């Protein structure tokens, strides 16, 4: 391995170092605050390292990894999401657990798994990244061990995720039988001229099941609502953003390597999955009274929109998907940030009645939630609108008319339930609850500031998307 290759791995080593630093800090009995600050600094170092190595990219580290602009962009979105999740976690866990520290080890390990997914170009690294992510997520979901809901959703996710990793492995084994290789590019070359057998097609179907499960696409979405509801609110935010970004990145890289989009049949399968996700996700969300479950169904629908950008398999498609994921991450993080802040010691703020008249009690929080819901619904002047717009544009350029039409129609259905929450925010307020003094004034300030910044970012991305698109384009040139 040359020096440059080693250097290119620096950001990922810093990320791996973050969890070790946290372990050592716990051994030294340092406080939660110190660990929080150190963790945040390590994430900053990761970003700095990424900027530092930018000039020597792209680097291939045979046979497992490739670090290029594509990986840097997706890793950037993941690190951003985890930074916000980490900031939101302080208040949430300080109030609940005697021992909130080990949470950060698991959080950083899960991040490492998601980041490894973005750079993998081999089945072994794909599988290891996915499992580092999933195994840490099992523990994160069940972290509040005195709550029945958390244990239940943890066990559900555990059984289903382990089952789908077995499916994924069988799919990989059948790919290996056909091609004799586990590298994405080598598989693509072997497949180019040949007509694969029936076992290979079975393997492909199994892999679609596994990826569909991880992205919570219909018909593999059944875990989403339960896990979103039972997991602690910051962990839910992590599942909705970082884990899906990682899995989507590897799906994109794999399908580009094996020219998945060239096959008429597979294109139809994926557009079927996208259409089913958009329709079912939006319809199931209509009658939800629980905001975490509602966001779960809305995330199923949003991943369906994202698959529309995946279908063309071109540069424009990648650009649209990165922008979409970034906008979606900001939006969903601010929505879950509000859920986190409003949660009490006993119960997460998941019932819609908690939000009745929120505007009259806490106008800033209500404004942030309203903006993020507008962005989820795709109202103009928010990031969500522009993200949806470029996805539509890519779909229309490549004549994917059916998914595009379904996208537009289901967005209208979506508008109904987002606006229903917003009208709840402005309803007449119930009797004011007694004010209690916040425990950690500094971290309350930081959390509010983060949410405010996220709100501003949603608006800025919605009004001036040009610089962001330009930045994405420049990173994608590194290949």
């Amino acid at each position, binding site marked *: 391995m040359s020096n440059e290759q080693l250097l290119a791995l620096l950001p990922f080593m810093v990320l791996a170092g973050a969890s070790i630093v946290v372990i050592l800090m716990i051994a030294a009995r340092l406080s939660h605050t110190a660990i929080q600050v150190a963790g945040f600094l390590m994430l900053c170092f990761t970003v700095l390292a990424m900027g530092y190595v930018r000039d020597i990219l792209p680097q291939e580290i045979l046979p497992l990894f490739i670090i290029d602009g594509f990986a840097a962009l997706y890793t950037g979105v993941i690190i951003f999401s985890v930074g916000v999740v980490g900031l939101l976690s302080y208040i949430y866990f300080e109030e609940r657990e005697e021992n909130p520290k080990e949470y950060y080890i698991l959080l950083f390990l899960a991040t490492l798994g998601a980041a490894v997914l973005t750079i993998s170009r081999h089945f072994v690294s794909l599988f290891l990244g996915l499992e580092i992510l999933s195994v840490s997520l099992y523990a994160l979901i069940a972290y509040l061990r005195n709550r029945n809901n958390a244990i239940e959703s943890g*066990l559900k996710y555990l059984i289903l995720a382990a089952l789908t990793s077995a499916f994924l492995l069988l799919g990989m084994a059948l790919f290996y039988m056909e091609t004799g290789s586990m590298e994405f590019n080598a598989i693509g070359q072997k497949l180019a001229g040949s007509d694969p057998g029936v076992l290979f097609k079975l393997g492909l179907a199994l892999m679609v099941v596994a990826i569909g499960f991880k992205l919570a696409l219909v018909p593999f979405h059944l875990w989403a609502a339960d896990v979103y509801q039972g997991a602690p609110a910051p962990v839910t935010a992590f599942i909705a953003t970082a884990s899906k970004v990682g899995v989507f990145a590897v799906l994109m890289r794999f399908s580009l390597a094996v020219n998945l989009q060239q096959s008429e049949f597979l294109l139809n399968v994926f557009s079927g999955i996208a259409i089913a996700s958009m329709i079912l996700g939006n319809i199931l969300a209509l009658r939800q009274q629980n905001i975490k479950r509602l966001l779960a169904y809305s995330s199923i629908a949003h991943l369906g929109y994202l698959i529309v950008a995946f279908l063309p398999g071109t540069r424009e498609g990648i650009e649209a998907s990165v922008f979409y994921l970034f906008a979606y991450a900001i939006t969903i993080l601010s929505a879950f940030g509000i859920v986190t802040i409003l949660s009490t010691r006993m119960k997460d703020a998941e019932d819609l009645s908690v939000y009745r008249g929120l505007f009259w009690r806490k106008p800033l929080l209500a404004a942030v939630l309203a903006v993020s819901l507008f962005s989820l619904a795709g109202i103009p002047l928010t990031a969500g609108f522009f993200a949806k717009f470029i996805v539509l544009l890519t779909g229309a350029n490549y004549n994917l008319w059916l998914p595009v039409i379904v996208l537009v129609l289901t967005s209208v259905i979506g508008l109904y339930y987002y606006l229903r929450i917003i009208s709840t925010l402005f309803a007449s307020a119930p009797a004011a609850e007694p004010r209690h003094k916040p425990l950690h004034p500094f971290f309350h300030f930081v959390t509010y500031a983060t949410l405010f910044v996220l709100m501003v970012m949603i608006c800025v991305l919605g009004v001036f998307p040009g610089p962001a698109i330009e930045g994405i384009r420049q990173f994608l040139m590194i290949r």
Partner: protein
Amino acid sequence: MPIERYIFLAIALFCIGIAGVLIRRNAIIVFMCIELMLNAVNLLLVAFSKMHHLKATAANATAGIEGQLFVFFIMVVAAAEVSVGLAIIVMMYRNVHSVDINFLNRLKH
């Protein structure tokens, strides 16, 4: 032995695993069935590895080595998964005094 026999055996083991996950109600047995599925894949990978190795020429003498390497990683990951999984099952037992997965029905609307 022809490769088909390994494939049949591995797929049969895999299907027994799936059936167990779907039918059994005890969380620990469900977990064992998942392990069975992973080991079926291990068997398959080793068989394919040997198959590709037999076809190898002098130019690429290490052909088919990836499959066997992958098996070690799968074993490690399966062990990690089981340790975290058993910890969660123990916590479940503490809360509801049972490891029956029919008790996992409280999350609703």
